[in-house]
């Protein structure tokens, strides 16, 4: 009889452990992250190393994903692209989670006029097509990887803020919040120390889905030339340069496309598994 089994944390882990798809997603994410971190150690070629004599070579033992129009190794470029994509994913989600949590918490906790104003702002943000907003902002701010992170972060917090608001609306009425106030705790202390830890379940799920979404958005932007700039590589920009050679060199589009597909899929599987595990209404 181990005690962990009965703790909420143990229960969540138990449910994830039995969800094969979520485990698959988690291991894919782990492998991808390791590959991104180890990057240069896994390949003899630098991502920007050109070799005119070896242009557009099909995949073979030396270049396992072939080479591009400048004779660069596609696998090496994808590894360095993975760093870009994954870091954009994480940093954008950190930005959007912070905004989402603060706005949602303030709206749910204070209620009244503050709530109305903040939630109408959310409605406005949601009614602007995100891709449009991203395009306009990135043209305005100029293409750079930092801008991409900030832009994706600034446009992706609305759903989370609604979730957090809903959690706060119900949690703020709990007696332990009153008990904390009776102990002399300030509003900030109650929001961040007493209520937020109880509202974190949806945040975890939204963060996992958010990383996938942000990677997808970054690929799209880079594909359109608004993300990372050459000679730096990201999955989207490799895809973009490959589309001109799609008839002669399928490997330049198929491999980065697969990388994007597998990554997003992995995050979605893990996200769904986590959501099922954290939702107390779903009992097996």
């Amino acid at each position, binding site marked *: 009889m181990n005690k962990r089994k009965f*703790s909420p944390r143990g229960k969540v882990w138990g449910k994830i452990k039995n969800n094969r798809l979520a485990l698959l997603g988690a291991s894919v994410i782990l492998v991808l992250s390791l590959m991104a971190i180890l990057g240069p150690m896994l390949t003899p070629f630098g991502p920007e190393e050109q070799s005119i004599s070896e242009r557009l070579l099909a995949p073979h033992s030396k270049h396992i994903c072939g080479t591009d129009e400048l004779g660069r190794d596609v696998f090496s470029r994808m590894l360095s692209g993975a760093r870009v994509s994954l870091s954009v994913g994480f940093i954008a989600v950190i930005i959007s989670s912070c905004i989402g949590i603060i706005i949602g918490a303030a709206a749910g906790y204070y209620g009244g006029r503050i709530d109305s104003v903040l939630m109408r702002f959310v409605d406005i943000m949601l009614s602007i097509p995100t891709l449009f907003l991203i395009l306009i902002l990135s043209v305005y701010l100029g293409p750079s990887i930092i801008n991409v992170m900030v832009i994706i972060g600034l446009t992706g917090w609305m759903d989370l803020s609604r979730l957090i608001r809903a959690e706060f609306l119900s949690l703020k009425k*709990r*007696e*332990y919040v*009153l*008990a*904390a*106030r*009776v*102990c*002399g*705790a*300030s509003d900030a202390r109650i929001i961040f*120390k*007493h209520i937020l*830890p*109880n509202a974190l379940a949806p945040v975890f799920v939204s963060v996992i889905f958010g990383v996938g979404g942000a990677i997808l958005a970054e690929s799209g932007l880079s594909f359109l030339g608004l993300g990372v700039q050459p000679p730096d590589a990201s999955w989207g920009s490799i895809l973009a340069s490959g589309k001109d050679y799609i008839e002669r060199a399928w490997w330049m589009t198929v491999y980065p496309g697969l990388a994007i597909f597998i990554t997003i899929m992995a995050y979605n599987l893990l996200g769904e598994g986590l959501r099922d595990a954290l939702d107390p209404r779903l009992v097996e």
Partner: protein
Amino acid sequence: MIDTLLKISKLSIEFLLPEGSLKAVDGINLSVRKKETVCIVGESGSGKTVTALAIMRLIPKPGIISSGEIFFNGENILKIPENKMMQLRGASISMVFQEPFNSLNPVFRVSDQIGESVELHIGLKGLAKEQKILEVLKLVGIQDEKRVYNSYPHELSGGMRQRVMIAMGLVSNPSLLIADEPTTALDVTIQSQILDLLAELKEKLSLSVLLITHDLGVVNEIGDSVYVMYAGKIMEKGNKSEIFNNPKHPYTEGLLKSVPDLGPVKRRLYTIEGNIPNLKELPNGCRFHPRCPYAMEICKKQTPVETKFSSQHSAWCFRYQGGEEQNG
């Protein structure tokens, strides 16, 4: 009056609803002396809890204190700024709630729950803080304080949790402990343990206790003086023996008769007919008259005033007022 710790005078609390304002508490006077246990007794909805929250200045919206004064240690706490009030809460006035499971944050260990008060009001950190927490856990009668120190609320029983709540309230050495139905959610044996604990702590820490309850058994066990509240007004007040042995107000009488007695005595349990009135449709005159077995004509028209029976014992009922005074 140097030994009066808490003095409430003419306190009224209103809830401002869209359809009009509801007076949940109507001009009550109450005082708690040092080292005294004062009980407020009444049915659900009579305004007991709101009164307690008013002392903390934590009345939930849209409620407001529409008039009256609350003096704590001679200072009108309705007039002090919010940040000073925040220092008072939990430090000089503590509160314990009815449902110990809901009052403990499920994500905190006991050490963090109590530690919060220690940090906020005593300013201890690290080892000194741990010492203080273990000390207060021991004080509230927890034997294996080391295990409880590291436990989450869901790992503790109801009685244990209530002890932890009391420990949370007492760690900063308050002079007034407000206990809002502290034993209602507990079973009878645990209930009497908690009451014994409160009585013991009161002596040890020279604490004043304001106990809110609907259970006259609880009052009998630890009360010094009693206030009987009905629909936002005080009906009768007095010390315990006066209230129990010589109840004057028909409502107090009814409450005492509706306590079931143990043993072989067979009688039908008395009930007070009807329900507590809706605050939206308060009856004219004495608020209790529709349920009162002795109701007279005058009760429907006028509000009774205080009749004193001793220095402490008073009731608000026309039965003890000369009819002629009222007609004039």
